[in-house]
């Protein structure tokens, strides 16, 4: 589904990613872990097409297409979804209007008919239950005045509505209490299928108790320095990142 080859990325003249190689097959869940400043969020945002990053080398193939050539909205329509670490407020635009516009843009791309307002309302009322949010959030402006946890749940709601093929969760677990964490995890698990893949970018192992990854990668200094199975995450939790760093240097 996704293949990243020797990806180098600069932001404001500084190289943040220094050669990422990663392959994610359909149906797989990958966790990308690493200390602060290692480039995890940069990777997530580059995959979504954020304009402030400059790819200086390497390529990213998504279902055989050159992902980096696609505009952010085309990536979304092709099924790439980024759950933001810091979701943006959109004052004056209601959640329902926003989500309906987004879903219909994606449906139009797939050659499907637009969903009308009434149909969509029923649809979103079902979806909002899965993230245990109050129905009143449907009509509130996107993320405006939401608590940290509510914003993260709102990201998961969007994911549930848009049903992406590749979901990238950028530190969705940070700042969440146990209940919210459980809800977020359930939202992700519900979406899991043999056709869909998930990349979890996270600092802590906590989320991985709920969503068990097939692979765990350690990102340091802009590169993946170690990959392994789910046990690697436990080891990281027990021993921190320092031993990986030493290991990487020795290599």
């Amino acid at each position, binding site marked *: 589904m996704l293949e990243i080859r020797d990806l180098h990325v600069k932001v404001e003249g500084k190289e943040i990613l220094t050669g990422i190689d990663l392959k994610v097959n359909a149906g797989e869940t990958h966790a990308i872990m690493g200390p602060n400043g290692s480039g995890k969020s940069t990777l997530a945002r580059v995959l979504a097409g954020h304009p402030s990053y400059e790819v200086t080398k390497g390529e990213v193939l998504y279902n055989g297409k050159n992902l980096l050539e696609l*505009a*952010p909205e085309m990536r979304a329509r092709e099924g790439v979804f980024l759950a933001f670490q810091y979701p*943006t407020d959109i004052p*004056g635009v209601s959640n329902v209007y926003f989500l309906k516009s987004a*879903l219909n*843009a994606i449906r139009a791309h797939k050659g499907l008919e637009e969903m009308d307002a009434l149909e969509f309302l029923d649809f979103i009322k079902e979806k909002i239950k899965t993230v245990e949010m109050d129905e009143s959030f449907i009509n509130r402006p996107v993320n405006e005045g939401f608590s940290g946890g509510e914003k993260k749940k709102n990201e998961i709601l969007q994911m549930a509505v*848009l049903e992406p093929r590749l979901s990238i969760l950028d530190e969705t677990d940070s700042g969440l209490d146990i209940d919210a964490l459980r809800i977020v995890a359930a939202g992700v698990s519900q979406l899991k299928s043999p056709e869909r893949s998930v990349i979890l970018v996270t600092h802590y192992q906590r989320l991985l108790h709920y969503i068990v990854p097939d692979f765990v990668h350690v990102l340091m200094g802009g590169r993946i320095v170690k990959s392994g199975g789910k046990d690697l995450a436990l080891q990281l939790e027990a021993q921190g990142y320092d031993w990986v760093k030493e290991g990487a240097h020795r290599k």
Partner: protein
Amino acid sequence: MKTKTAPEIFLEKEKCLAAYEWFKKAEAGKSPSWLASYRDEAIARFRDQSFPTVHDEAWKYTSLEPFAKLAFRPVYRNDSGRINSHAVKNLLGKAPGPRLVFINGLYAPLFSSTAGLEGNIKMVHLGASWNSEGRLAERSWFPQENVRLEIFADLNSAFLNDGMMLQLPENFLVKTPLECVYLTLPENQKLVSYPRNLIVAEPGSSAVVVERYLGLGGNPYFTNAVTDYVIREGASVEAYRLQKETRQACHISSTRVSVGRQSRFVFFNMDFGGRLVRNHLSVVFSEEGGECDLNGLYLAGEGQHIDNHTVIDHLKPKGTSRQLYKGILGSRSRAVFSGKIFVRQDAQKTDAAQKNKNLLLSSDARVDTRPQLEILADDVKCAHGAAVGQLNEDEIFYLRSRGLGVKEAKKVLTYGFAHEIVDKVGLGAVKEELEHWLEDRLESVAHKEEK
């Protein structure tokens, strides 16, 4: 009217004075004497002033130049057959309730209706009511003249001919919105009209009033409108001013509001049309207490210039004023906001807040904004501010990352910017209409930016 047609009017003093002489002769014996002297006094004030240029502080950012050399003709008789066209019918639609329609400045009974008017509300057109209702006009107008010397308002008073008079009876709560429409049809010639409204809300009364300004046709025209609101003790008025003139129009208006003791005035000023627009709004707190909530939304596209000058004058204690004006500016458009709040020495415990926010959608749009406070009392709460910004890149990316194209994302965000005002609109029909206008205009404004 005499066989000769009325002389043309330029934005030149001598031409206006000559036109007045003609008008005075034509009106001789038809108007009550108080009205004749009212007009005479207005033209006398006019004579002492000059048409403003950009060298005048208050007109620094707004030039009348594009219209200065154009000759506009007033209309004193409408050809009813011609105005009964499909285009006009479509534009006006069916009256949603009591409505007075004026075409080219003259009352159009064909499109007007006062059926369903509740209780003893007086809703008449001035042209037919000078004799019966003159006292009310006389009583209500004269104090307002002291508010501010404004040359265009004086010109309107001098050529005062028709308009809407509305009186809400004491303690009467009107449920149906009351509406007036001014439509200009500059088909074969450039026209000028002088819309005039007087709304008197007697003590304890309450109503929703809608003013509309519309145009049809490709010729330039000039609308010079004045509306006076007298809100007496404990009365409450929610007023909408919906300006959607053609893009060839020059629209200059004065809205003068007197806020009485413990009364309330809510105002929505929506500017979507016009080529050159200048609105004066003056709200005077002449008695203790009272509150106003002034909302403005202006959307300027290619070649449009929209200027709002507002003055809120707290003369007496315990008044509350709120003002939020928001502007959206597309390619090669310009806007001006000048908002002055006076808190006079006597006006202790005044609570005033003013804000102007502008969204520039293009690098060649320009806005000049000047919120100003002048406080002479010492125990008051006042805040004011202005902002000029562009669409936020993070917000655009967020929407794009969910599948919305750049154009759609910008449109949605711009719509969101406007929604702070639209959300406050209490009248459902107007809210719906505004949403359509926005949808329509943002489509073309955003489209311009794509290129």
